[in-house]
């Protein structure tokens, strides 16, 4: 069991006594894309927030169960900021911080104590290139991140998530605010990034999970319905009627 990057055991989360996750257990291997699908309000985002422990910043939540990363219990880690720096997060709506493009990407390294201009320059260029944004903004790194278009801002968010060199990249419906062409470009980037990190991809687009996911996990109403190789879930007989119905658009 030791070769999994992330192991989640019996994770139970509730908001103000209202259960959001009802005992999820999954294991995520390294260097693969782990796709999470499921209807709205089924706990997909909550799952991501448990991994980097930002859920505990929201009042009224209670979390039970364990999340282990590289065999270490994330819930017991004292250096929660160090933990969050190992994980890159991208949320559905882009949040350009009211800083320049450069400062947006350099924010996390700076907060982690990097001061050297040369190192920051290198990080900014590498991350923007990885997020397929460098060519569009390299001449205007000083403009405000919030002045970019929606699609550009989302790629800026991805660049920012990569800026602290994470081992795990979590993407939460990253493509709902961007056009199909850009989405495809980012998907290509993700395939490249897979060699370096473990990717958890939460998506509403079933076909996106099919294109990118090595393993797909289907969550419904806070419960794990099925997890397995993507080909199995998308085959004509996934072995679970609910999965078949959701993927083929019969419900949800």
């Amino acid at each position, binding site marked *: 069991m030791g070769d999994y990057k992330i192991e989640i055991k019996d994770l139970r989360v509730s908001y103000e006594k209202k259960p959001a996750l009802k005992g999820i257990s999954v294991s995520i291997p390294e260097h693969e894309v782990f796709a999470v699908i499921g209807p709205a309000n089924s706990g997909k985002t909550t799952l991501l927030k448990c991994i980097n422990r*930002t859920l505990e*910043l929201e009042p009224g939540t209670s979390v039970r169960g364990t999340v282990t990363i590289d065999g270490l219990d994330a819930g017991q880690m004292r250096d929660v*900021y160090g933990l969050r720096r190992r994980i890159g997060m991208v*949320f559905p709506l882009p*949040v350009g*911080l*009211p800083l320049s493009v450069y400062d947006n990407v350099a924010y996390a390294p700076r*907060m*982690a104590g990097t001061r050297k201009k040369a190192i920051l320059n290198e990080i900014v260029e590498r991350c923007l290139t990885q997020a397929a944004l460098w060519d569009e903004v390299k001449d205007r790194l000083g403009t405000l991140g919030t002045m970019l278009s929606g699609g550009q801002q989302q790629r800026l968010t991805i660049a*920012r998530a990569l800026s602290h060199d994470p081992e795990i990249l979590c993407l939460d419906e990253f493509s709902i605010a961007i056009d199909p062409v850009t989405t495809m470009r980012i998907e290509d980037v993700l395939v490249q990034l897979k060699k370096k990190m473990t990717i958890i991809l939460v998506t509403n687009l079933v076909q996106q999970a099919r294109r990118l996911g090595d393993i797909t996990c289907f969550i419904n109403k806070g419960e794990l319905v099925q997890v397995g190789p993507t080909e199995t879930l998308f085959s004509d007989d996934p072995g679970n009627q609910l999965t078949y119905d959701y993927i083929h658009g019969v419900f949800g």
Partner: protein
Amino acid sequence: MNAPSTDEPAALFTAGPLTRRKLRTQRLAGAVFGGMSVIILAPLFALIGYLVVRAWPALTWEFLTGLPEKGMRAGGIWPALIGTLYLVFFSLVLSAPVGVFAGIYLNEYARDNWFTRIVNLAVVNLAGVPSIVYALFGVGAFVIFADLGKCIVSASLTIAIMTLPAYIVATKEALNAVPHSFRVACWNLGASKWQTIRTMVLPNSISGILTPMILDACRTAGETAPVMFTGAVFYKAIEAGELLLYSPMEQCMALSYHLFTISTQVPGVPDEMLYATAVVLLAFVLCFNSFAIVLRTYMRGKKKW
């Protein structure tokens, strides 16, 4: 009621009875609300105009920078003007840090529990206490109990406590106006709460914190009750034209108290001197107000979202 038929395009160009009624109500609403706004302006202009006209003969440079003479019946108001500046400055220095830090704690760190609720309740209640009560508290706490005596420090502390709730509320509101998503984004990047506040929340809320603070500080310049028992005096002999007139442990003259005494306690003060003192006090407040507005406009121009 015969509603206009939408089958004919022409119906869109003629107002039916319903449309006419809507337009009539709209015009009426505009007139009433506009009228109320004019009613707000009228007394302000009338007041300022009247004061300035009556004060005009006495409004000279000598009046501003001169010392009171002949038992307040002639001369200037320099010591009172500087005294008020002292009080505003010291009270701001004393209460601004406490107010801002308490506001940051309440908005950013505090969880919703009984302690936070009590603090918030205390803030709201403190804001409703009349200034004369603060004055008596100041006498008891600072002048007598802390044995500071009647002095600038006692008076400033009294004013400071009086303005504290306003500073806390202003800070909380300014911080609250920064979108929560900015904080979440920073936390996800591994920034601690304090790093997030220092690099993201404060730089984006500083104008909302400073502007109300300046407005409240200058409003205290007009407060008479809190200073009359704790540090203001009727007359204090000083040298003319000096800027550093007082030491913090001395009593001082204050514009508001000066106006109170010359208009009620001293017989035979020329009318234009009374009006001129009022005009200076008003100008003092308006001066700071416009500074705050300029600052806010400047900061808004730099706002980045």
